[in-house]
C-alpha cells in the first residue's frame, strides 16, 4: 500500500466533513481532519500536491485523498466550504471553522496558481497530465498466465486509490488490455488451471468496477463480451461452481426481430443494451457498487433513448410494424410478437422525457395503435392480453386525456367505447394482473378532475379554485362521457354485484370471487369522485344492500369486502351516505357478523371493530343513535368490548340528560351551540379525552344538526345538573355562526386542557376558537403526527422511495423530491396537499388521505418508479 502521507508544509489539522454528491444528494462520507500537502507517492517521483482527510473515528483510515489537479476546479464557497470535481464526482469539504478552511484553501489556491502560470492559460488534458506528473505511464505486465498473480495484486492496489484507478483505466484502454486478457481464459480452461481462472475473474471484476464508461462499453462490444463474461464464470467466491454466461449470451434465439431493423448501429445498440442488462442483473449483481450500478444504468438508458428515437422517426418501419395487424392472413405468432414488441417500446418510453414520450405515442396512435390494443385485449393468448393492457396503461399513465378523447369520439360515433371493452375484460378475465390493471384504468379514465390537478378533491372545489391550467373548467366532453358511463356502462360494470340480489345461494368460485374486491375498489373511488352521480347510482340500485348480501356468504374475505365498503361510506362523513347506511339497516348485519365471530380474535372481528370504533371516534351520532335504538340487545351483548360500552354510554348519558358535569368545566351554553355540525372529525387520540370531554360530547350529541332545533332545544339542560351559573348562557347565544368554521373537536380539546372557572368563562370564550390557541394546547401525540404530516408535505414517502431506489444509503435527504419529473408523481403530491387543504377538519380527512394515497399509488406505482429511474440518470 501507499506510504502514509508525510506532511510537507503542515497547516494545522482542521476538523471537516467530507461530502460526495450522489444522485443529487450530498452523501456524508464522514468527519475527519484535513491536511493539504505535497506528498511522496513513489520513490524517485516528484511529490504531488494532495488534500487528505483522516477519519476522526479511525485515524488510520482516510476519508479522502485527492490530488490537486488544475481542471478539478477547486472553489471556495462561503467561509467554510471547498467544492471541486473528482473524477466526475462532485465533492465538498465543509469545515468546522473558517480559519481551517482558509488555510487549506491557501494551499490549494497556491498550487492552482502555479498550474496557471506554468501552463499559461487553458490547456488540454494531455499537458495537464505532464504538468502535475501524474503516473500516466504505468506499465501493465504483459498479459500472460505467468504474470496473472502479479497483475491481480497490482490492480487491486491501484484500484484502491483514485489516482491509481485513473492510471489503470488509461492503461487498460490504451493497450486494449481486455482483448489481451480474453485469450487467456481459454488457455487456462484448456489447462484446467482453476487458480488462473479465478485470478482472471478477479482481474476482470476489478476492470469492470473501475467504473469507466468506455471500458464497460468496450467490454460489451461484439468482440469482447463473450471473453469478458467467460472470465467472470469462474468466481473464486464460489469455487465449486461455474456460471454459464457465455452459453446464455451466445444463444442467438433470444433476439426477436419482428420487423427488420435496417440500421446496423441501432441493431448493435440493442444487443449491447441487452448485454449491459445481463451484466447488471446477473453477472455483477452481487458485487455491484453504487457508482458502477449507475454507470450501467445510464449506459442502458441512453442506448434505449437512441433506439426508441430511431424507431419512432422511421415511418417505413412503423408502417411495416402496424400493417402486421391489418393483414388477416398474417400468422398469430407474428402478431403476438408485434404486440410484445410495442409493449417493450412503451416500457422503455416511460423513461423518456415527456415530450419525447408524447411524440412516440402520437406516432404510434397515428399508425393505428388503438387497433392493436383492441386486437390484444380480445386475444385468446394471455400474454397478448397482458401486452395490450400494458400498452394501454402506459398511455393512460402518460396522459389519460388522450385516451378519454378517443373514448369520447367512439361514443359520438356510436362505436363501443373502450371503457366497455375494458369492463367486459374485467368481468371475464382470469389473469390477476390484467384484472388489476384494467381496474386501475377504469378508475383513472373516469376521474373527472383535470390532469395535474388534485384528483381526489371534490369537483366543486376545482370549479371554485382554478389551478391556472387550461383544462380547469369541467370538460364538457368529460361530462358527457360520465353521463354516458352512468347511463350505459355502470350497470354492466357492477353486474356481479347487482346480480347478488337474485342469487339464491352464495357460492363462489375461488377464481371469480376476486371480482368483488375490484368492484369495491372502483366503486369507492367513484363515490369519492362522482358526487351526485354515484349517490344516485347507489340509491337506484340499492348497492349497500347488495354488499350486505356478501356478509352472509361463508367466504370471510368477501365479508371483509363488504365491511370495507361500509367503512368507506362512514369515512366520507357525508350526510347522504350516513342516512343511507341507517335507512338500509346495514349495521345490524355487521353486528351479527361480529356476534358470530366474536369469541375469536380474527381479521373479520378487527375490521368490524375498526368500523364501529370509527363511528364512535368520529362521533357520528346519527349512526350511534341508529345502532343503539335498533340493535340495543346486540350492542349490549357486545358491551364487554370498550367500543360498544362507550357507544352505549354515550347514547344513554346524552339521552337521559343525567350527565354529571364537573362544575369547573362548565362552559357557557353557546360553546355547545357554536360547535360546527361536523365536529366529530378527530384523529385516533379520542381515547385520551377525559371525562370532561365526555360530558361535552353528550351535550353535543343532543344538539341537533338543524340550527332551528338548536335554538328550540332547552338551552340550559347541561345547567340543570349544576346550579352555579344560571343566566350567562342565554346571553351568549348570538355567536352561533362565529364558530362554524373552527374545528369543533379542537375547541373541545382546548376546553379540556384549560378548564375555566365559570366566572372567567365569558372572557375566555374567544381564545379557544382561534386556530392558533388550538394548536398550542393540542395533546403531544397529536402534535407529533401533525409534525410528521408537515414533514411529508415536503418529502412524502413516495419520494423517499425514489430516493432509495437510487441506491443511496443516506436517509437524511430533503431535496430528493426535486428531481422527480413525472407528472404522475406531481399529481400524487398534490393529491396529498389538496385533500388536506380542502377540509377544515383534522381527523376525518387524514383517514381519507390514507385511502387516497393507496389508490393513487397503485395507479402510479409504475410510472413513479420509472420516473425515478429517469431522475437517477
Amino acid at each position, binding site marked *: 500500500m501507499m506510504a502514509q502521507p508525510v506532511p510537507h508544509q503542515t497547516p494545522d489539522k482542521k476538523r471537516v466533513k467530507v461530502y460526495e454528491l450522489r444522485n443529487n444528494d450530498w452523501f456524508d462520507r464522514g468527519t475527519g481532519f484535513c491536511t493539504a500537502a505535497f506528498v511522496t507517492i513513489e520513490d524517485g517521483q516528484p511529490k504531488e500536491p494532495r488534500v487528505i482527510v483522516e477519519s476522526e473515528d479511525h485515524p488510520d483510515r482516510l476519508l479522502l485523498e485527492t490530488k490537486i489537479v488544475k481542471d478539478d476546479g477547486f472553489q471556495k464557497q462561503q467561509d467554510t466550504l471547498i467544492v471541486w470535481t473528482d473524477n466526475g464526482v462532485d465533492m465538498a469539504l465543509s469545515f468546522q471553522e473558517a480559519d481551517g478552511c482558509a488555510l487549506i484553501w491557501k494551499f490549494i489556491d497556491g498550487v492552482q496558481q502555479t498550474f496557471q502560470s506554468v501552463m499559461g492559460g487553458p490547456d488540454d488534458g494531455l499537458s495537464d497530465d505532464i504538468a502535475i506528473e501524474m503516473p500516466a505511464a504505468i506499465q501493465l505486465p504483459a498479459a500472460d498466465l505467468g504474470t496473472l498473480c502479479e497483475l491481480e495484486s497490482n490492480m487491486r492496489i491501484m484500484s484502491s486509490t483514485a489516482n491509481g484507478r485513473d492510471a489503470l483505466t488509461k492503461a487498460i484502454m490504451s493497450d486494449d488490455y481486455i482483448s489481451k486478457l480474453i485469450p487467456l481464459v481459454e488457455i487456462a480452461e484448456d489447462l484446467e488451471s482453476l487458480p488462473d481462472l479465478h485470478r482472471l475473474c478477479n482481474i476482470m471484476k476489478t476492470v469492470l468496477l473501475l467504473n469507466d464508461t468506455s471500458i464497460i462499453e468496450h467490454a460489451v462490444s461484439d468482440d469482447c463480451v463473450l471473453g469478458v463474461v467467460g472470465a467472470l464464470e469462474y468466481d473464486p467466491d464460489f469455487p465449486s461452481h461455474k456460471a454459464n454466461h457465455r452459453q446464455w449470451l451466445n444463444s442467438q434465439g433470444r433476439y426477436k426481430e419482428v420487423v427488420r431493423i435496417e440500421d446496423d448501429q441501432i441493431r448493435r445498440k440493442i444487443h449491447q443494451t441487452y448485454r449491459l442488462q445481463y451484466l447488471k442483473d446477473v453477472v455483477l449483481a452481487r458485487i455491484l457498487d453504487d457508482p458502477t450500478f449507475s454507470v450501467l444504468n445510464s449506459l442502458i438508458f441512453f442506448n434505449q433513448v437512441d433506439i426508441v428515437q430511431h424507431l419512432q422517426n422511421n415511418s417505413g418501419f412503423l408502417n411495416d410494424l402496424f400493417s402486421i395487424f391489418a393483414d388477416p392472413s398474417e400468422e398469430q405468432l407474428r402478431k403476438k410478437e408485434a404486440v410484445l414488441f410495442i409493449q417493450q417500446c412503451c416500457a422503455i418510453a416511460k423513461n423518456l422525457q415527456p415530450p419525447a414520450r408524447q411524440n412516440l405515442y402520437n406516432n404510434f396512435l397515428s399508425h393505428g395503435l388503438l387497433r392493436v390494443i383492441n386486437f390484444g385485449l380480445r386475444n385468446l393468448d394471455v400474454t397478448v392480453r397482458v401486452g395490450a393492457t400494458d400498452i394501454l396503461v402506459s398511455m393512460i399513465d402518460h396522459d389519460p386525456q388522450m385516451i378519454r378523447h378517443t373514448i369520447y369520439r367512439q361514443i359520438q360515433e356510436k362505436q363501443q367505447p373502450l371503457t366497455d371493452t375494458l369492463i367486459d375484460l374485467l368481468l371475464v378475465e382470469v389473469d390477476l394482473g390484467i384484472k388489476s390493471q384494467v381496474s386501475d384504468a377504469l378508475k383513472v379514465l373516469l376521474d373527472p378532475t383535470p390532469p395535474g390537478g388534485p384528483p381526489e378533491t371534490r369537483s366543486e372545489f376545482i370549479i371554485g379554485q382554478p389551478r391556472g391550467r387550461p383544462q380547469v373548467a369541467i370538460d364538457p366532453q368529460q361530462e358527457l362521457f360520465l353521463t354516458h358511463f352512468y347511463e350505459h356502462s355502470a350497470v354492466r360494470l357492477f353486474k356481479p354485484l347487482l346480480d347478488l340480489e337474485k342469487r339464491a345461494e352464495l357460492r363462489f368460485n375461488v377464481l371469480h370471487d376476486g371480482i368483488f374486491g375490484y368492484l369495491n375498489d372502483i366503486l369507492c373511488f367513484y363515490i369519492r369522485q362522482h358526487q351526485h352521480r354515484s349517490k344516485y347510482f347507489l340509491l337506484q340500485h340499492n348497492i349497500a344492500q347488495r354488499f350486505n348480501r356478501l356478509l352472509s356468504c361463508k367466504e370471510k374475505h368477501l365479508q371483509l369486502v363488504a365491511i370495507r365498503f361500509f367503512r368507506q361510506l362512514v369515512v366520507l362523513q357525508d350526510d347522504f351516505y350516513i342516512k343511507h347506511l341507517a335507512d338500509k339497516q346495514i349495521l345490524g348485519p355487521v353486528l351479527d357478523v361480529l356476534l358470530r365471530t366474536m369469541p375469536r380474535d380474527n381479521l373479520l372481528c378487527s375490521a368490524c371493530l375498526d368500523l364501529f370504533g370509527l363511528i364512535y371516534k368520529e362521533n357520528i351520532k346519527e349512526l350511534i343513535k341508529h345502532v343503539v335504538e335498533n340493535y340495543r340487545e346486540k350492542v349490549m351483548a357486545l358491551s364487554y368490548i370498550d367500543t360498544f360500552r*362507550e357507544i352505549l354510554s354515550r347514547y344513554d348519558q346524552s339521552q337521559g340528560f343525567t350527565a354529571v358535569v364537573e362544575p369547573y368545566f362548565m362552559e357557557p351554553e353557546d360553546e355547545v351551540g357554536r360547535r360546527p355540525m361536523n365536529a366529530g372529525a378527530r384523529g385516533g387520540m379520542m381515547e385520551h379525552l377525559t371525562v370532561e370531554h365526555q360530558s361535552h360530547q353528550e351535550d353535543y350529541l343532543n344538539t341537533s344538526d338543524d340550527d332551528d332545533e338548536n335554538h328550540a332545544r332547552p338551552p340550559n339542560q347541561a345547567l340543570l345538573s349544576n346550579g352555579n351559573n344560571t343566566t350567562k348562557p342565554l346571553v351568549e347565544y348570538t355567536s352561533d355562526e362565529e364558530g362554524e368554521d373552527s374545528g369543533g373537536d379542537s375547541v373541545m380539546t382546548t376546553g379540556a386542557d384549560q378548564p375555566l372557572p365559570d366566572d372567567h368563562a365569558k372572557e375566555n370564550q374567544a381564545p379557544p376558537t382561534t386556530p392558533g390557541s388550538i394548536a398550542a394546547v393540542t395533546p403531544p401525540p397529536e402534535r407529533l403526527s401533525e409534525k410528521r404530516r408537515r414533514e411529508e408535505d415536503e418529502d412524502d414517502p413516495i419520494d423517499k422511495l425514489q430516493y432509495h431506489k437510487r441506491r443511496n444509503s443516506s436517509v437524511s435527504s430533503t431535496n430528493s423530491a426535486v428531481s422527480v419529473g413525472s407528472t404522475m408523481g406531481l399529481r400524487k403530491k398534490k393529491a396529498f396537499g389538496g385533500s388536506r387543504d380542502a377540509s377544515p377538519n383534522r381527523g376525518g380527512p387524514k383517514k381519507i388521505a390514507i385511502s387516497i394515497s393507496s389508490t393513487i399509488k397503485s395507479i402510479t406505482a409504475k410510472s413513479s418508479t420509472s420516473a425515478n429511474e429517469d431522475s437517477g440518470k
Partner: protein
Amino acid sequence: MSDLDRAIAQLRACRPIPEAEVRELCHKARELLIEEGNVVTVTAPVTICGDIHGQFHDLMELFRVGGDVPDTNYLFMGDFVDRGFYSLESFLLLLCLKVRYPDRMTLIRGNHESRQITTVYGFYDECLRKYGSANVWRYCCDVFDYLALGAIVLGASNTLSPSGDGEAQGSEEDIEIEVCNADGQIMSQFPRQPRGAGNSINRQPPRGRSPNGPTRLPTNTGPPGSGASGSSGGSIGNPAGAVLCVHGGLSPLIDMVDKIRLLDRKQEVPHEGAMCDLLWSDPDEIDGWGLSPRGAGFLFGADIVKVFNYKNDLSLIARAHQLVMEGFKEMFDTSIVTVWSAPNYCYRCGNVAALLELSEDEGGLGIFARSNGDVNRSDGGLIGGGSGVPGSGPRGVLMENDLASLKPGPARRYRVFQAAPQDSRGMPAKKPVADYFL
C-alpha cells in the same frame, strides 16, 4: 396434501413452483391468515427470527441451526422479501410451511411486505423475471395484506432448556442469557441479575434511574392498582411475563396491546398511523418519541418501552427491522431486543445473524388462557377498562419502584450463525430476461 409436500420439497431445492400452484397456495394461506388476530398468540417454546430478505440459502442455514419445521416452533417477524435474490422462493417456502403446519409457524408482517416497497427493492422485479408477469407478485401482495401485525409469546420459561450438547448444564447458576454458535456450542452465558442492575450484554448503560425518575412518565393519575395494575392482568401462570413480537416497534397511538386488535389490517401498509408505526418504528437513545429518519414510523426511547411493557405486563419486546452486526442487540435494560436473521446482509454487509429461542415453562403454569382466537377481551373489558373509559387516564401509574419490579425477561438463548457456506448454494444471481426485442 401431497401436493403441498411436493411444493415444499421443490421450494427447498430453491426451485419456484408454477404460477397456478402459487395462486392456490395463496388462497389457502388467506383462509388461514384471516382467522388470525392482529396480534397472534404463540405459546413457548418458540424460536423467533428477524429479517430474511430473500436470502434463501441463509434461510436454509437458519433451519439447520434452529431445527427444522415442524420440530421447531417458528415465529418470523417479517421482511421475508426484497434485497436478496431469492425473495420468491424464501417467501413461498415459509408460506407453504405455514399452510402445512399452521401451528408451528407464525408469520407477521414487515414493512417490506408491501406493494410499494417491493416494487422498489427487488421482489417485484424478481417475480417479473421468474414468471414473465407480475401475477405472482400480486398474489403474494394479497397475502401480505392478511399477515398479522404482531405476536404475543406466552408461557416462556425463566430458565433455559438444555441446549442439546449438555455442556455447562450442571451449572447452579440461574442463566438468563446464553449465546450459542451455529453448532450449538455455548459461546457465553450471563447469569440472571436483578432487573436494572445492568447486564454485561447491554450495550447501553441503564438509563432514567435518577431519583427523579424518567422525565416523561405520566404523573397525573391515581395510585397503582387504581385502574387495574399491570401485574394483575397477566401474572396468572405467566411468570416470565409475555413477549411482544413486532417488526418495527411501538406507536404513539398504541398504548395497550389490545388496541392493536382494533385495527383493520387488511390493507396496504399506510404511510402513517398505528399500523404503519408498528412496522416502521425504531428504538433509539432518546427520551420519549422522535421523528424517524426513515420517513415513516417514529423513534422511541427507553422510557416509552418501559412504560409500555409495564402497562401491558410484558417482560420483553422482540423486534427486527434494523441490521445489527452481531445478529441481536438488547437495549434499555433488556426491555427490548432486535433480532436480525439475514447473515452477510445483501451478500456484502459481513454481519452474523441470530435466532432467539424462548423455552417452555416446565412448571405447567406456562399455559395461559389467552390463546390465539379467543380473547383477552373478556378480561380486556375489565383490565383494559381503565384505558378505554375516558377519565381514568392511562392505566396505573408507573412509579420508580415499579420500574425495578418490571417483569424479569424470560431466559433467552441466542443462536448466532453465519451465511450459508458457499458450496451449499449456487451463485446468488438474478435470473436474466429471456427474450428481447429491443
